């Protein structure tokens, strides 16, 4: 994945390559899957991406990934209460899925390890580009996860929550979902773990979603890793004709986090919404990178990111909207707003438009600022102390994105998580 020959492998690169050699015999997969694994580790042997690779400009993985923990077979993680009441929970604990499947009408769930063994998921293991380091890392090591199939026309009453939880070591998980034509579902992707003494887990997680004609999906990514964890995640989706996807990403943890969102509209009339909040604190690095392809005519998308940066945190948002030549009548809008609350925090943003069709309306806006002094004054003039006033303003800034979600239960659940974060990070 790196054009420039690396003079010497870093400790992390060496550790990954060695780990692959050791784990190989334990990894499930038929011939096709194993070939993909070999290709993927070859890519890693060429070096992890550096800042010279454009899509990794602000997250120099080669420099930042300093340590790779060993696989801990005896680590124990426990499933969590779901974010939404009544949701069916599908946990992956320390990289291993459960054998107990919930029974939901119209929904078939399979363990991914089985799908790897029979090779049926092999075509989906390809990387999406030469610089797809997360895809490579995951393909090389993925051992388990789930495949959720929601039949055509199924309207789920309760949400499905996919949990990926670790108590240290390494975990490489894939969560696949197919939502059939006309179906309706809320899916929560929970990424969390327990802090361990050995310096934090290394997690890679790839979610792949295919949405059929006229289906509607709300997918929530709630990432609350401990502040020692390295979390490399990818969300990929294909939207069919008239399909609707609302993706909500909440990053509120992790030491080194990269969440990639790769979405492609493949059917006319598809609509994609990305709503995201990044709550960044401590000495952490969080990167949200989106690549959105409008590949067919008459599709629309809106993206709104709200970021709060405190402490010595560094945040990144890269958003690229590609409008293909054939994709006339595309309507795409993107906004990224950031509140910088501390002198040592930093935020970098790169909203890109790449447009090859002429009959389109595309725009993006980005701002970086501190809390508005007038707003603060307004509240303080009413007898609210500065700390509370600041808290109110910051919360209002991010809550705006949450409130846009139409489902009350969703809004309440997310605001509760938001409050939790503010409680611990003041």
């Amino acid at each position, binding site marked *: 994945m790196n054009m420039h020959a690396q003079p010497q492998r870093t400790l992390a690169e060496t550790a990954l390559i060695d780990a692959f050699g050791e784990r190989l015999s334990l990894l499930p997969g038929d011939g096709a899957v194993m070939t993909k694994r070999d290709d993927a580790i070859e890519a890693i042997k060429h070096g992890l991406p550096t800042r010279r690779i454009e899509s990794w400009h602000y997250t120099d993985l080669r420099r930042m990934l300093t340590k790779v923990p060993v696989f801990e077979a005896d680590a124990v993680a426990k499933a969590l209460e779901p974010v939404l009441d009544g949701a069916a929970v599908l946990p992956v604990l320390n990289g291993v899925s459960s054998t107990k499947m919930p029974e939901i009408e119209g929904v078939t769930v399979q363990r991914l390890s089985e799908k790897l063994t029979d090779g049926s998921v092999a075509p989906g293991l390809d990387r999406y580009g030469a610089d797809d380091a997360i895809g490579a890392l995951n393909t090389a090591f993925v051992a388990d996860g789930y495949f959720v199939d929601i039949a055509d026309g199924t309207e789920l009453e309760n949400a499905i929550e996919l949990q990926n939880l670790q108590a240290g070591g390494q975990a490489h998980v894939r969560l696949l979902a197919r939502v059939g034509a006309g179906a309706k579902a809320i899916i929560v992707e929970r990424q969390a773990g327990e802090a361990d003494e050995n310096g934090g887990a290394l997690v890679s997680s790839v979610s792949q979603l295919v949405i059929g004609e006229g289906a509607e999906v709300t997918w929530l990514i709630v990432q609350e890793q401990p502040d020692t964890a390295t979390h490399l995640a990818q969300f990929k989706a294909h939207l069919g004709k008239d399909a609707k996807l609302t993706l909500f990403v909440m990053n509120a943890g992790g030491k080194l986090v990269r969440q990639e969102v790769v979405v492609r509209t493949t059917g006319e009339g598809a609509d994609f919404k990305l709503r995201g909040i990044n709550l960044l604190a401590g000495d952490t690095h969080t990167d949200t990178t989106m690549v959105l392809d409008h590949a067919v005519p008459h599709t629309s998308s809106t993206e709104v990111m709200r970021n709060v940066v405190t402490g010595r945190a560094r945040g990144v948002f890269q958003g690229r909207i590609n409008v293909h030549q054939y994709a006339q009548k595309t309507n795409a809008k993107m906004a990224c707003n950031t509140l910088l609350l501390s002198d040592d925090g930093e935020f970098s943003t790169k*909203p890109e438009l790449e447009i090859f069709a002429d009959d389109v309306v595309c725009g993006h806006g980005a701002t970086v600022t501190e809390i508005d002094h007038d707003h603060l004054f307004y509240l303080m003039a009413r007898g609210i102390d500065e700390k509370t006033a600041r808290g109110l303003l910051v919360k209002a800034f991010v809550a705006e994105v949450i409130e846009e979600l139409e489902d009350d239960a969703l809004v309440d659940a997310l605001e509760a998580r938001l409050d939790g974060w503010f409680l611990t990070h003041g």
Partner: protein
Amino acid sequence: MPAVQETIDRVRKIDVDQYKFGFQTEIETDKAPKGLNEDIIRLISAKKREPDWMLEWRLGAFRRWLTLEEPTWARVKYPKIDFQDIHYYAAPKSSPGPKSLDEVDPELLKVYEKLGIPLKEQEILAGVQKADASELEEANDNVYKSGRVAVDAVFDSVSVVTTFKKELAEAGVIFCSISEAIREHPELVQKYLGSVVPTSDNFYATLNSAVFTDGSFVFVPKGVRCPMELSTYFRINERNTGQFERTLIIAEEGAYVSYLEGCTAPQRDENQLHAAVVELIALDDAEIKYSTVQNWYPGDAEGKGGVYNFVTKRGDCRGDRSKISWTQVETGSAITWKYPSCILRGDDSSGEFYSIAVSNGYQQVDSGTKMIHLGKNTSSRIISKGIAAGFSQNTYRGQVSAHRKAANARNFTNCDSLLIGDQCGAHTVPYMEAKNATAKFEHEATTSKISEDQKFYVMQRGIPEEEAIALIVNGFVKDVIQQLPMEFAVEAQKLIGISLEGSVG
């Protein structure tokens, strides 16, 4: 725009390929052999009668260049350039100054005529040795009603002549070719050259440092407001030559200068290389306004030929309360790779970037700016208008960054793109990096086509489609045109009309 029909007519008269300046001038030239090595650099340095330190500086840059790789991150595609297949030095043959216009090489005069330089100016440009002050005044009055412009004309590698030197000297302003400055004001050149764009900066800037042949030098001393607009015409004439000009502008405390460069080249099948470096330095309370009208040959309708324009332009707001403003109208070149930038080092300094980039045919433009906020209370403003037509690719690439100590940094960025036709592409790649909590950055960008409603509104008043589009486009770019000095605003509007010729139907 009433000029549109007139413009269209004129263009039609000139050539089917619609490039107004596509004439080649048959002037005897003195060329260095093709290729690049230390001997060529020694030759250039000797031709320019440069002091030893300058030669060493060049050689240092050349050795550095040998270690560098061509950058590939820009969104432009072109066959690999053979840097050994270029003449790095070409000069019109010199002879003692002519006594009157009759003695001047008529070919040279034709060039000026085609460039639209008036007769009296032509005399001066051609170096006719009779111009006294009063005549100059007269010349000026005839030429520019709204103000006077001193011109430095650069042909291939050599500055042909600089006008109004005497009058500028009276005000204390030094305006001459950079080679002359190296000989006559070495202390200034040594102090400032390479202090904004170091020899190790990037592939093309380093190449330029090694082989630059000419360019302009401007020095405006403390407290002086330069009495007239300064201007340079660059023209690549000779076949297979590269033009590497170097411009250095220094405004001392409280000084002000407005500078304009215009560029043209004849039509050629092969690609010509242009790799310039421009350095601006503004000390306390100084202001520099730098405008560019770039109209290098863009290649023909099939995308053959055209100039590769790889330019490094950077301004350093070194002093407190200083200001640097870039305005550019980019209509030419097969490939443009250009990011005029401001380093806002002084407290309360400000930087501006106004750009119109028009691409048609198979042109590729990757242009934008960098605003680096280092000092306190610095502000910057970016207005970029990109217009893509035909099969062209038009990219805005810009960076705004606030460093740790840049308290209260402010930036406003607006980049709009207009697409004409469904075979072209418009791209926006802004980078925003805030490392200070008191920074306030705003960025907005839009991409769309000319709405049918707008076009219908104009056309139903009896205006033909092509003119209607030119009219709407000129409205689209008005914010930037307003930043140009008057004389050039008119020229720029016409150029945009010409560039978009043939983009409809």
